[in-house]
């Protein structure tokens, strides 16, 4: 690599470590989003339901998870939750590397609480007339939700969701505490081995900033794509 020649910290195994950490961080982001978005949607629909039976658990979930540091949740899912499993399952889990799945679980479940907040305000921004119009066209509750309300609510929430994705991207760095070999973990590894702390941190900062900038850019695009009445 041309670039690596100019920066010794990017050469040889250090470069490989950074690259593998960066890829794992992106994978964490992707999988956690894949968990957080549908769950957040489910929670938002639950919280906007008229039935208390649907509302109470969804509200409890959101209030509970958003008031506990994501760091503690990571520690919980990695160290505490597996203790509830039978010993042989736990052993198999740790043998196959529980770090990555536990990190995805913790980050995704945490993000879902915030995603549901954003989707809920997106839902609430839909004018009442939209519901009435949908039912006037003969659509049932589910049908109007799926075909009329949700598509608009999702578009409403896109900028806020981009912001959540950004937060999630930054939170992936915390997975280092349970030993997931993401970017921050690899950076610490490079630092300990090369004694070039500033350079290692600089590389990591640039990589984090690059993805953050990309996500922020997507948020700006999403802002333009919102339905007219919400702007």
């Amino acid at each position, binding site marked *: 690599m041309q670039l690596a020649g100019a920066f010794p910290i990017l050469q040889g195994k250090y470069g490989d470590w950074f690259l593998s950490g960066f890829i794992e961080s992106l994978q964490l982001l992707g999988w956690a989003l894949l968990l957080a978005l549908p769950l957040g949607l489910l929670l938002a629909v639950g919280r906007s339901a008229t039935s208390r039976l649907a509302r109470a658990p969804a509200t409890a979930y959101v209030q509970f998870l958003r008031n506990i540091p*994501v760091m*503690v949740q990571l520690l919980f899912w990695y160290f505490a939750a597996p203790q509830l499993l039978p010993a042989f399952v736990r052993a198999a889990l740790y043998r196959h590397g529980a770090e990555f799945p536990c990190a995805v679980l913790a980050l995704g479940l945490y993000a879902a609480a915030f995603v549901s907040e954003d989707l809920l305000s997106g839902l609430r921004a839909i004018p009442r007339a939209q519901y009435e119009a949908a039912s006037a066209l003969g659509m049932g509750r589910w049908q109007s939700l799926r075909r009329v309300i949700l598509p608009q609510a999702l578009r409403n929430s896109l900028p806020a969701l981009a912001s*959540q994705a950004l937060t999630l991207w930054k939170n992936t*760095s915390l997975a280092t*505490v349970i030993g997931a070999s993401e970017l921050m973990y690899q950076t610490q590894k490079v630092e300990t081995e090369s004694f070039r702390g500033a350079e290692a941190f600089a590389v990591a900062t640039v990589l984090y*900033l690059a993805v953050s900038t990309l996500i*922020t850019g997507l948020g700006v695009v999403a802002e333009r794509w919102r339905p007219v009445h919400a702007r």
Partner: protein
Amino acid sequence: MSSVLHDYWAYFLVGQYPNGPLGGLALTLLLGVSAVTLALPFGVLLGLARLSPWRALRWPVMALVYVVRGSPLLMVVFWAYFFMPGSSGRGNSQFATMLAALVVFNGAYLAEIVRSGLEALPRGQLEAARSLGLGYLQAMRHVVLPQALRNVLPSLVSQLVVTIKETSLGYIIGLTEFTFIATQVDSQLITHSTAVYTLVALTYFALCGGLSLLARRLDARSGPQAGPRPGGWAQARRAVPA
């Protein structure tokens, strides 16, 4: 869980204090409150600098805010750890490191909120103040800032919630705050992880949930006068793209 609580409650609350440095929940609270208290003036300064007429001031601050907002807090903590003098020593230097990181991180977020508050204010306000004979700084202090900050100040409590959650990162640099104590207790007991971490999660929930509730009460009380500002900084942080 009750046996863990029975044996370790003092350790959870104050760490080794009075026989050692203060730690535990008390340190978490102290760090959270100090960070919020210092981040506010720092954020206001950064926000003002972002809109300063001098390019030499505006651009570096703009770069700082951009970098900090795009980086994970942990990155900022590591940078602070790297730059803080004597941070490899013992004692409370981890506290200073964590405090510096939290102030810079939250200050950068706050700077954007202060900036948007300032930009939302009609230019006429500054011009009117200047035409009354006030200097630039005087006009800022007496006329512009009070109006721009009105929406920021009441949300200090919800900012405290966010910051308390962030103090848990102190664990990574060995600051003996609540989460650190929990990991210590966990490694001493070995087989009680579920009880320890459930206890810790519930404590954070009670603390942050209670404060969130208080924030909502205060928000409701401040009424329509304060304008639309549902979640305070925490909300604004999510609403304003970095």
